């Protein structure tokens, strides 16, 4: 583990850890720290591949903010948040978690175990995916650790255009991103009453929609967001997901945002949340039991000349952490 914070660098050189945070291993995590970990896996996506490059892309573009944070305090104009990289180490970059690209059962077990160890040390995980499927074992590992520490369960909030409640696809079988939420549900890691979806829009497979309705799942569609506003919707989703729970896992699939804002999606999306709505969602979440954040689905290879998607993702993390790890003393 690097003993000290990195000195202020210009935007480009140096080892590209997330926000210039020190590198470390799970054993170095302490209660209350933020653990950043990439999951470079994208083989379950049915659309365009490339999410395997997202962890690297997030880290690289985060230097833009790292450089500023290392030297000065930053102020978020809209929220008034004042942020500074803490003098003592609060964020640790664990690098990328181990995956075995052609062996999903082994990958799944490894991710589950890794997350259980991270959360078991009382750290707040920030996951840089990878395609959405990786959320399933990670949520299971997180749930196990939280139950071990608190005796209570977790909630799950998914920002995505899709519900991911599929079971088996005729081509992809059961190892595909569209099964993620169903796997979480079926594993018992999260009770159906503590799951919520935000921003669902466009066309879904009919069976996913019917399953959600039949089981009375809390789905807040894009229309609901437009009608009630993102703040109210997130508050209601968190109320559902957090009821009786010790913590909430939040997965943000970048396809929840209109592709006009973030085009780096495995499948082009023509409607969705605005980028600022999702940023406001982070402002709400950080005041709640949200105890883990995963960004999934970013496909940097869709646009090699733009960094808009990864820059946006890093900003989401910063907004999420603004009242804790990055708060000015």
């Amino acid at each position: 583990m690097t003993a000290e914070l990195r000195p202020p660098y210009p935007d480009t050189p140096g080892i590209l850890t997330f926000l210039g945070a020190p590198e470390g291993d799970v054993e170095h995590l302490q209660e209350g720290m933020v653990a950043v970990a990439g999951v470079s896996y994208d083989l379950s996506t049915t659309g365009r591949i490339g999410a395997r490059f997202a962890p690297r892309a997030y880290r690289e573009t985060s230097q833009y903010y790292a450089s500023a944070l290392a030297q000065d305090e930053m102020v978020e104009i809209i929220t008034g948040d004042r942020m500074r990289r803490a003098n003592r180490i609060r964020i640790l970059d664990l690098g990328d978690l181990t995956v075995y690209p052609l062996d999903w059962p082994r990958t799944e077990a490894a991710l589950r175990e890794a997350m259980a160890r991270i959360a078991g040390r009382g750290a707040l995980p920030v996951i840089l995916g990878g395609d959405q499927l990786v959320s399933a074992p990670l949520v299971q590992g997180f749930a196990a650790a939280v139950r071990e520490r608190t005796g209570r369960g977790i909630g799950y909030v998914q920002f995505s255009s899709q519900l991911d409640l599929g079971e088996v696809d005729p081509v992809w079988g059961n190892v595909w991103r569209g099964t993620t939420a169903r796997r979480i549900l079926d594993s018992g890691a999260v009770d159906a009453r503590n799951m919520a979806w935000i921003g669902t829009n466009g066309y879904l497979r009919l069976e996913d929609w019917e399953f959600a309705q039949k089981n009375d799942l809390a789905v807040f569609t894009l229309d609901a967001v437009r009608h009630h506003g993102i703040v109210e919707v997130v508050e209601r989703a968190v109320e559902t997901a957090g009821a009786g729970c010790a913590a909430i896992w939040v997965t943000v699939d970048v396809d929840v945002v209109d592709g006009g804002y973030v085009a780096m999606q495995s499948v082009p999306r023509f409607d969705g949340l605005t980028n600022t709505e999702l940023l406001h969602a982070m402002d709400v979440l950080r005041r709640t039991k949200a105890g883990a954040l995963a960004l999934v689905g970013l496909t940097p290879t869709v646009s090699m000349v733009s960094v808009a998607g990864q820059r946006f993702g890093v900003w989401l993390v910063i907004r999420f952490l603004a009242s804790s790890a990055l708060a000015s003393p």
Partner: protein
Amino acid sequence: MYTRDLLPSFAGVNTFARAPVGTIESLAPGAVAIAGIAHDGTSSSRQGVRQGPRGIREASVDFVYDLYASSRKALVHVGTGRILRPPGDPQLIDLGDLPIAPMDLARTREGCQRAAAAIVRQGAFPVMLGGDHYVTYPFARGVGEAVGGHLGLIQLSTQLDLADRDSVWGRDWHGATIRRLIESSGVEPRNVVFLGTHGYVTYPEWEFAQSRGMTMITADAVRAAGARATVQRALAVANAGCDGVYVSLDVDVVDSGYASGTGDVLVGGLTPAEVLALMRELSTSRSIVALDAVEVAPGLDQRGRSERLAAEAIIELVAPRVFAG
């Protein structure tokens, strides 16, 4: 034993929405017939729309993968409740691309016109994949000829395409499409509706449209009225006294920030969601007899959004005809 099974969206032969390949002669009444025109010789803008038909087909396959993979063989639109189901046989047929002669515009024009007329005479609904917007001229002429003469037109485009003679491009180019159409066929100016027009157009075109009683519903007006009221107004104008309405979608009606894969870079246009909502509303009208999606240049959109938008827009418009199960 080997059996053909569902392929991933990136594999296989890319016909539109995995439709079977067919010929004009084999079209049954009520079928929707896809026909590409890979022509871009009359575009004054950035080149690349000759790849439009190929790009739209590929993107359409990706979109319909979920439809065929669904255990219920159905997709539901979360916002509107619309259900899509796989086409029955022979509702959707891909005719491939029509013959063109890149260096002989007159021959290209005649071939496209004859093909459009032949498709409509079979009782089918043609969907043409362009190509630059000029090909709408011969194709719509053929459609008009086959439906009996009087055709209304709804064009979604940034521009009016009413130029008379351009000092560089002459009379036959994509900026003169509608002018040529109303001069030479049964499309009356009073039945022409421009949807989503915005930004600067040449003053003579603007003046011509107004003096001939054409209807312009600008992008701002579309937003103010909403898709349903806009389409009701457009159809009332385009269909008055006509034997059918032709819909032409120039993908440049969408703001370039959302879809850059077209010849011109244009800002201030409609959003993709607005265009899809318009197509969904248009789809409920049985007076529409043909559709085209033109000016799609996949090579100019690294993100693959423009051809995908064109594919989804087509599917929305033909959904009640072929994707209703």
